[in-house]
């Protein structure tokens, strides 16, 4: 039976997985990946490493495909009366918070709502302009004594918005950055069932990408793959987003180009996408890629890296929006990429270094 990616992703999106607290997401991914790979291993930095062995002669080259399972979120940093104060984990525009329904993960899970107190409760400087996270409160509907018994400083708070099927084949909800790519990696593993590939494939669900990307660092350092691809989301075109900085949803994946990307990997992704008839656009990344590829590139003496991205609207809001078709396209492209890896590709990786692009 075909893998129901919508169902799996829907479940993933409902799980809390703020950076450094990914365990519930990891366990759900493990359940999905275990039947599809030869080995699956935990790591002290929390990332999930899955090995699908290649059939080439030993010692085999290996390709690492990494998607991060953590998401942005909030952390309780104070209790005032019947209410909580919060700090952000990762980058959040405070303007998405007032009116946002959240889950507070204390001694028991509680639904709450972020709100901005009325002007009469705020200092004068906070009465104008956009809300400042510092002055926002979370209401869980409990009086102070019960609140203090249930929640403490350091507890996590996540967006509780349900997953919403929208338009034709689109999905909106929190944490699609980057669980959409975890779903793509899962599809890739399904695609590769019963189809031998020369290289070893190491699929990784990484941790803490939204803060330091230590999960990707650990995976790359401990496995030392011959090459690594970060699978992530990129800015989708939407109102008020400069057109030249974003990519239209539903019109193709993006292939990162810039100092964080090895030219031979860029070329190979483009070539295979063309062969497979998968639309792909070049995404220029003149400095950082803002993905796991940054720490993977410089890990363990250097690893050739690529960045494959799925356009997503409203990044880092509770209503991130992607096209399911593009998640499927990414899964298909990654599988085709793995199937096409020949031993001489390692040669190409060093030739490019000598001759330039």
């Amino acid at each position, binding site marked *: 039976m075909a893998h129901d990616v919508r169902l799996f992703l829907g479940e993933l999106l409902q799980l809390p997985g703020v950076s450094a607290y990914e365990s519930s997401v990891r366990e759900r991914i493990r359940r999905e990946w275990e039947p599809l790979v030869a080995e699956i291993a935990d790591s002290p930095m929390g990332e999930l490493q899955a090995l699908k062995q290649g059939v080439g002669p030993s010692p085999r080259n290996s390709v690492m495909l990494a998607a991060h399972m953590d998401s942005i979120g909030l952390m309780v940093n104070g209790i005032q009366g019947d209410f909580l104060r919060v700090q952000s984990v990762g980058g959040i*525009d405070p303007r*998405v918070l007032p*009116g946002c329904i959240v889950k507070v993960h204390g001694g028991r899970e509680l639904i709450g709502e972020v709100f901005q107190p009325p002007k009469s409760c705020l200092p004068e400087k906070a009465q104008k302009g*956009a809300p400042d996270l510092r002055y926002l409160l979370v209401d869980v509907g409990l009086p102070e004594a019960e609140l203090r018994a249930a929640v403490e400083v350091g507890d996590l708070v996540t967006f509780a918005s349900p997953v919403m099927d*929208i338009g034709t084949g689109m999905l*909106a909800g929190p944490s699609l950055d980057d669980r959409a790519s975890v779903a793509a990696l899962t599809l890739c593993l399904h695609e590769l069932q019963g189809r031998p590939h020369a290289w070893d494939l190491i699929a990784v669900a990484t941790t803490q990408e939204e803060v330091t990307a230590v999960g990707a660092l650990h995976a790359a350092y401990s496995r030392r793959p011959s090459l690594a691809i970060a699978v992530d989301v990129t800015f989708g075109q*939407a109102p008020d987003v400069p057109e030249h900085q974003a990519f239209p949803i539903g019109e193709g994946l993006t292939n990162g180009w810039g100092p964080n990307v090895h030219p031979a990997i860029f070329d190979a992704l483009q070539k295979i996408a063309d062969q497979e008839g998968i639309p792909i656009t070049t995404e220029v990344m003149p400095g950082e890629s803002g993905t796991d590829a940054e720490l993977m590139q410089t890990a363990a003496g250097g690893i050739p890296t690529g960045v494959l991205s799925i356009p997503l609207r409203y990044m880092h809001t509770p209503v991130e929006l992607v096209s399911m078709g593009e998640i499927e396209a990414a899964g298909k492209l990654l599988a085709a990429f793995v199937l096409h890896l020949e031993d001489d590709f390692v040669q190409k990786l060093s030739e490019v270094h000598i001759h330039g692009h």
Partner: protein
Amino acid sequence: MAIESLPPASPTPESLALLARLTEAVGISGGEAEVRDIVAEKLDPHAERMEIDALGNLLAFHRAPGDRRPKIMVCAHMDEVGMMISGIDKSGFLRFKPVGGLAIQTLGGRQVWIGREKIPGVIGLPPIHLLSEEKWKSELKVDDLRIDIGASSKEEAEEKVRLGAQVTFATRLHQQEGSIWAKALDDRLGVAILVELFQNPPPGIELLAAFTVQEEVGLRGAQAAAHRLQPDFGLALDCAPARDFPTWEGGKNDRYVSHLREGPAIYVMDGRTIADKRWVDLITRSAQENGIQYQIRQPLSGGTDAGALHLSREGVPSVSLSVPARHLHGPVGLIDVADWRAAARLVYASLANLPASDLWQAD
């Protein structure tokens, strides 16, 4: 005096299910049909007669008693604040305008329903990565926001949504321990209490139930309903803002309006009306005699249908009784279950006490 057969102190499964249906209905001011249909369905077995007037108010009557009893119009408004689709962009994103006193700063990052079909949409914001500091430090303006229904062109959007379609937050009711979280508690909670009251009316009065429209845009429905019903007395059931929040400096919050978990709020004065003192006394006395917690709503601005009611025809002695609710006019409000039940009990006790009170005796 103490009243027998008060409504139950805990919600029944039926009353909770009704509140969920009512709050999840899409019904902004001027588009209350879905709410009205639910109310009509619930009242049908109990009403001698129901009318829908020119504005869309639903008026329900019991069989008129033989003797002359006090005619009391109890009203609750069916409409909620929300949005209306006002345009469709080339690329299929929808423009909208607020309807009523919508909390604009709660719109960013929300899920919405369009129309009774509940077509799903989202109001996104640009990624913070691409925003200048100036931009993310300026407050949201409706004209900068769009609703995304996943349409890739104007034509595709037009197939699904027409101009003027109503929009509400996509919020399902959620009960958590002693509290209820839902959209449109203002005033579907009042509607739920009035439905329950109509199904089990207090003796000795002639209850005229008015489920009104367009309260949020200027108490319009109540004006027409009161004219038609010609009551002796008026009572509006609504929600009172509970702004019982701490101040940043830690000082006393002297503009709290009402407190959650301190019982229904009796209005003495708001921005629209000064409540009839005899009504206020009747309700407070009924609360005390029946051991029902209550509070006096802090006299501040704002208003309810009582503002329109008391100006009907030659004037009607009126009052408001409200359930304290937090975070009204946004995606999700919060009430305390005990406050809700106390309000249902208090309105029943007060109406049962009215015929023997100085309100009726002095009439």
